[in-house]
């Protein structure tokens, strides 16, 4: 079967986590509030109200532009994007069109074939519309409710060049972008709907399809994988790919065609007459960037001596990197292994973020491992007990307490020697087999000793000791 090269470009909308909205003073933190309670004449678009630019939102966007190494326009311009929709309060969205805030940047990602650069076309600022809540099914719903709490939340739109070559790379790009935004402290990835993605995807030589409405990180890879398969299947059957806009239906993991009259827009862009051009020259230099993921990764390598893979994993998320640095002083390599390999695995299994684990408890656990007080097996057991307690909403027990309560401290050398002698006395047949040269008999005897000490012996040490005792007997 012929191989089609996949070409993907992304348009990402991110909500900036400013305290107030893009063009008014309303609070952006409406998560626990009733609909339409975080509104004023400006974000409701009441006749006569006028927008005021939130300087903080511009600063946040400039941070992103700098981090993505964009060229920042000294003078950018806000425009109106005109279209009718019930949740669009003014029937236009204030956005940036032909003079965006920043252009021509790049982001390095871990691509399918090593590190690669994805070019950023542009970054611009805009306002979020309100939110429609359809009561009943979309097709036959009796009515739709509109909530303007979201109207006016500051957004940045980041557009990439078509440099991404697979759905997996798209996910990698988003992960890296999210990490960068989090490091800049301009974005809260846990807020529902804080990131929305539209993707342009084509197979080389065929028409381009736009997939809209992807609202989760996992959804991007899923939607694009579906779309690649769909387009490949069309081409294999000798059918053309039609240039169109499709919607991602998250629940079913499919994209559906959405060619309706209402989708055919002429947005009639023109400069927003109520705002002056945005001149940022005097601010740009004052904006300082914090340490970004790549820099932190390199620092982890040199400062802690961790492996490249561990450094990548640990710096891939701001909170995880902070967590690691909090526990690294116990033993940087031990901490890296236990955080990146064991802890992350247990967290992923439970669909937990790093927030679920207290770094103080984890330090204590690392102390116990480092002091050789417990075995790795016991450590994993303790880790699971802590996370299970979190899952059930209980206060987790401290690792020291768990060790004490369950007697998980490693069994001492004398105790093990005594247990070995017991087992040799009890398992005559196996001992004979060992002397007859059957090596698996040793494993059996190790297992018997482990059983007696309930796994609290170090397997390597036990193996060595058992062999010594048996060999001495000859």
């Amino acid at each position, binding site marked *: 079967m012929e191989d089609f090269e996949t070409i993907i470009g992304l348009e990402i909308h991110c909500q900036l986590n400013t305290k107030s909205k893009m063009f008014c003073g309303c609070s952006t933190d409406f998560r626990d509030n009733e609909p339409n309670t975080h509104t004023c*004449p400006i974000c409701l678009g009441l006749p*006569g109200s*006028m927008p005021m630019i939130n300087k903080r939102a511009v600063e946040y966007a400039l941070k992103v532009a700098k981090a993505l190494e964009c060229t920042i326009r000294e003078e950018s311009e806000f425009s109106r994007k005109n279209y009718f929709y019930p949740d669009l309060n003014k029937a236009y969205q204030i956005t940036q069109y032909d003079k965006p805030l920043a252009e021509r940047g790049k982001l390095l990602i871990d691509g399918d074939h090593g590190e690669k650069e994805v070019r950023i076309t542009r970054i611009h600022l805009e306002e979020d519309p309100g939110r429609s809540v359809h009561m009943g099914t979309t097709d036959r719903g009796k009515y739709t409710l509109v909530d303007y709490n979201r109207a006016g939340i500051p957004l940045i739109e980041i557009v990439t060049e078509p440099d991404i070559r697979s759905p997996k790379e798209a996910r990698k790009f988003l992960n890296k972008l999210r990490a960068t935004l989090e490091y800049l402290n301009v974005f809260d990835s846990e807020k529902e709907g804080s990131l929305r993605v539209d993707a342009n995807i084509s197979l080389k030589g065929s028409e381009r399809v736009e997939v809209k409405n992807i609202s989760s990180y996992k959804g991007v890879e899923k939607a694009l994988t579906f779309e690649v398969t769909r387009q490949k299947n069309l081409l294999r059957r000798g059918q053309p790919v039609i240039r169109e806009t499709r919607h991602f239906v998250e629940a079913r993991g499919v994209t559906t065609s959405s060619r309706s009259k209402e989708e055919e827009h002429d947005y009639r862009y023109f400069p927003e007459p109520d705002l002056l051009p945005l001149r940022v020259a005097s601010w740009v230099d004052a904006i300082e960037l914090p340490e970004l993921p790549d820099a932190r990764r390199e620092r982890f390598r040199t400062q802690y001596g961790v492996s490249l893979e561990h450094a990548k994993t640990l710096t891939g998320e701001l909170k995880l990197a902070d967590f690691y640095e909090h526990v690294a002083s116990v033993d940087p390599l031990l901490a890296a292994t236990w955080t990146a390999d064991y802890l992350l695995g247990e967290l992923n299994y439970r669909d937990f973020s790093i927030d679920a684990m207290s770094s103080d408890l984890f330090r204590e656990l690392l102390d116990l491992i480092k002091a050789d007080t417990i075995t790795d097996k016991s450590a994993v057991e303790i880790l699971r007990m802590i996370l299970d307690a979190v899952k059930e909403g209980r206060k987790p027990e401290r690792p020291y307490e768990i060790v004490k309560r369950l007697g998980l401290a490693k069994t001492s050398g004398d105790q093990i020697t005594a247990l070995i002698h017991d087992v040799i006395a009890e398992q005559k047949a196996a001992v004979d087999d060992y002397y007859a040269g059957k090596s698996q008999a040793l494993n059996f005897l190790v297992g018997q000793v482990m059983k007696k000490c309930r796994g609290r012996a170090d397997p390597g040490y036990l193996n060595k000791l058992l062999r010594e005792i048996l060999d001495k007997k000859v």
Partner: protein
Amino acid sequence: MKTLSFHPDDAVHAFITTIPHVSYGEGPLCGMTVAVKDNISTKGIETTCASRILKGYIPPYDAHVITLLRNAGAAIVGKTNMDEFGMGTTTENSAFGPTYNPLDHSRVPGGSSGGSAAAVAAGLVDCAIGSDTGGSIRCPAAFCGIVGLKPTYGRVSRYGLIAYANSLEQIGPMARDVGTLSRLFSVLAGYDRRDATSVDKPYTHTPCADIKGLKVGVPREFFGEGVNPQVADVVRQAIETLKSLGAQAIPCTIPSMKYALAAYYVTCTSEASSNLARFDGVRYGPPITSMKSWHDAFSDQRKAGFGKEVRRRIMLGTFSLAAGYYGRYYHKAQTARQMVRNDFDRIFKEVDVIAGPTMPDIAFKFGEKSDPLQMYLSDILTVPANLAGVPALSVPCGTVDSMPVGLQLIGRYFEEERIIDAAYAFEQEVA
């Protein structure tokens, strides 16, 4: 707080809403009755823009100028009639019926701030505020024989003014005499952080009648084709009066005027098509009762709610902004606009103020201008000041057929003081 009762004998239909019991406080305008054009938001008072689509809309906030007026002790006594959303030159385009010219009820009061002008001219109030996008303060001031000022763009906050064409319009004062107009303007002018286009230029001037040495530019185009010769004569005499007071008249030309009307109508209709799109029936106007899709319901609502002239201008503006036409219309209009600005910049290097007629004719008879294009042409002398953003006022300077003629005085950016002085000097001389 003091109160007054307001029960005007509104034979000219100047008001859409009157407030029978008005309270007011202390301040420079203490107890002065002020009528407010119905496109300026007033908290708790219905604000309709003379449109069916906003019937019943009660703003939850005051426009910045309303706050300023209240703080100055003014008594806001009512909301005045206008052309729907400011779109007109006669106040005939009101959903609530026309306003009559107090001097001759068979004639229009001018527009679009016709209600405000008529209320002042009929003596129903001490003064009024209007808004001027292409002449909407100066035209009715001229037709009704009062004084009206369109300030420099940015000198008065537009916050709360229901926009017709944001880049062109300003709120301004209207009064029977220059002194009152000046007092009112000193309250209105100043910076407001809520209007990003506002400029920190307060007005604290007291009119002064000494205009010796004032250089008055007289543009040839203001006395050319389309201007009633009798009106031109009255205005020429007024300029002679200014000369007799020590001013110097200097002929000049504004070549860009031939593009001005087109640039104006493309710009204002484009902005209006966007501004008025929010009136879709979801938040304003009678509730949608049909079970049609939202798209069709919006269409029905807008067709029923907007008057004919508003619909015409929305169509024009939508077309001008459409993909493929933007460059030919909206963008080109902005280029023409820059040419008008350049002309004013050039002329104002030579002269202090520009003088000419406000309107090419006296107040029309009702129905006289039935062709929209004929109507649009009558804005030719007022739109250049809006396109450039410079201040301009109209002061009564005589009559033709017993109807008043307005002398238009145009000034440099933020030099309202000079045109107010010139108007004051003229007014004192002819009084």
